[in-house]
């Protein structure tokens, strides 16, 4: 370093030190490296964000479902965001069973009313994605096991959901997620 300093200052042209002690060369060095550093970091933005969901994936994020053919006690699997959605027409017995439970005793306390639309409590619309590690629970298809609480049962790691698709037993931390949806008419539901 000492040699470097000597090399920079000569008798004809003394080392360029301004009155506040900052050498011109140090200033240029720090400014150039900082500028290149900011530029380098800025390049990371496209490199990282290219990994996120692309426009076509996001564009498929709304689905319309005709629910007129689903009788009481029946359920269907629809597809939204390439994932299964369970649309279930609850029977009065199943609704009563869900209302019987004190939500305070649940792992993820919610009532059936909070998980459905007002006046349409019989339409239970949830993601068919177990909140544990993402398997598709059984119980929506004809003849599938519904588990001991009459809702859904995930065969992967044994999570059991009740008739309001609330987690009752097993490793899953949350109730089956209710996707954003609205009734566009009495028989058509738009998800997303």
């Amino acid at each position: 370093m000492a040699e470097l300093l000597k090399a920079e200052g000569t008798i004809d042209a003394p080392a360029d030190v301004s009155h506040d002690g900052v050498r011109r060369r140090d200033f240029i060095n720090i400014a150039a490296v900082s500028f290149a550093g900011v530029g380098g970091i800025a390049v990371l933005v496209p490199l990282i964000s290219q990994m996120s969901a692309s426009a076509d994936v996001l564009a498929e994020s709304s689905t319309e479902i005709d629910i007129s053919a689903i009788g009481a006690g029946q359920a269907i699997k629809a597809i939204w965001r390439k994932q299964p959605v369970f649309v279930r027409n609850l029977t009065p017995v199943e609704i009563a069973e869900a209302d019987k439970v004190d939500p305070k005793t649940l792992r993820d306390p919610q009532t059936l009313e909070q998980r459905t639309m007002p006046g349409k409590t019989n339409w239970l619309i949830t993601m068919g994605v177990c909140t544990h590690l993402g398997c598709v629970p059984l119980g929506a298809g004809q003849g599938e096991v519904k588990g001991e609480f009459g809702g859904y049962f995930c065969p992967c790691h044994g999570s059991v959901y009740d008739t309001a698709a609330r987690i009752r037993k097993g490793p899953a931390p949350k109730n089956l997620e209710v996707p954003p949806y609205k009734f566009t008419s009495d028989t058509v539901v738009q998800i997303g």
Partner: protein
Amino acid sequence: MSFPWANQYKPKNPLMVYLDQKLPLPRFVYNAIGGGYPVPRNLNYAWNFGVLAGFCLVLQIVTGVILAMHYAANSMIAFDSVEHIMRDVNWGWMLRYAHANGASAFFVVVYIHIFRGFFYSSYKAPREMIWLLGVVIFLLMMATAFMGYVLPWGQMSFWGAKVITGLFSAIPLVGEPLQQWLLGGFAPDNAALNRFFSLHFLLPFVIAAVIILHIWALHIPGSSNPTGVEIKTESDTVPFHPYYTAKDGFGLGVFLLIYCTFVFFLPNQLGHPDNYIPANAMSTPAHIVPEWYFWPFYAILRSFTVDFLFIPAKLMGVLAMFSAILVWFFLPWLDTSPVRSGHYRPLFRKFWYLLVIDTLILGYCGGSPAETKYVLISQIAASYYFLHFLVILPVVSSIEKPLPLPFSITEAVLGTDAVTA
């Protein structure tokens, strides 16, 4: 590194003399794995597995690059392209079976290599850096193997991708966005398949680079040996070539016999029939398990069924699973005994056997359905696993009275350290 008595590279062929002056690559190889590398004379067959692991990597890269010439990384045709390889491509069935079973063989070899390291305390000073780099290689291998398993786009591929990326959703706050970022969508799809293919192609070359560092670090202190006593004189060593190239060559022959038995006679023994069903996002296979080499860690993941304090069970499982490997990074400082080899550590040796059994039990439970009894056994075995590294190793190191060590490697081999021997 070189011991002063190491053979010098002396090319005779004029072309090699010329090359040595311009680019001394042959000299580098000679000093790394040739006659110029003095190795302890007493290495047993447990020391074959480093070379075997290197062979497996080459095998996987060669078969993998060829498979990539015929495979199509698109979710619409990936499954069909694998069937095209199996049915239409000349020798495609053999290359694919060689690659799929090559992954299993790679893990068998590496697990033996790692447990050799545990028994002979190969992680101890002055070889900590070799060990740390080895753990990095193992982590890279796990990532590569996982992404490779996704590529055929069968049911197990798809749901494996979903569950494993689902692990990241356990992380508080950033978990869900992170999972979506990793997948490039809300569930595994074309974006995920394409990036997994890209990374599956890249990572083996990263592994190769870290292996070069691993061997570079190895050549500074030189190879360890079954007595754990360091090299003192020339009589303790023999040149790597021809002594260990021959011994490794024999080991390679035995390895190939077993490997070829699987490739040609039991090619699907280690796979899952469900992966011959095309990926279906609407239906999860009844019994999803990862490939066998992940079972011990999968068992640890599943052994957390209740929330622990404020940490949800799901997050605990994920943390424990990663910790099961990360704890290896601390091994050089958890085992404080000055003696390396398990042969001279009677108490340590017993716990080593227990660790092997414990890991096998974890593996068995990880491959079994998530039933109460297997989960209970996993919980006990997982507790013991962490107990071994965090409590037993430090305690054993401090209370154990090791057996007397031989004066030198030569004495251990010949019973006398006379230089004339």
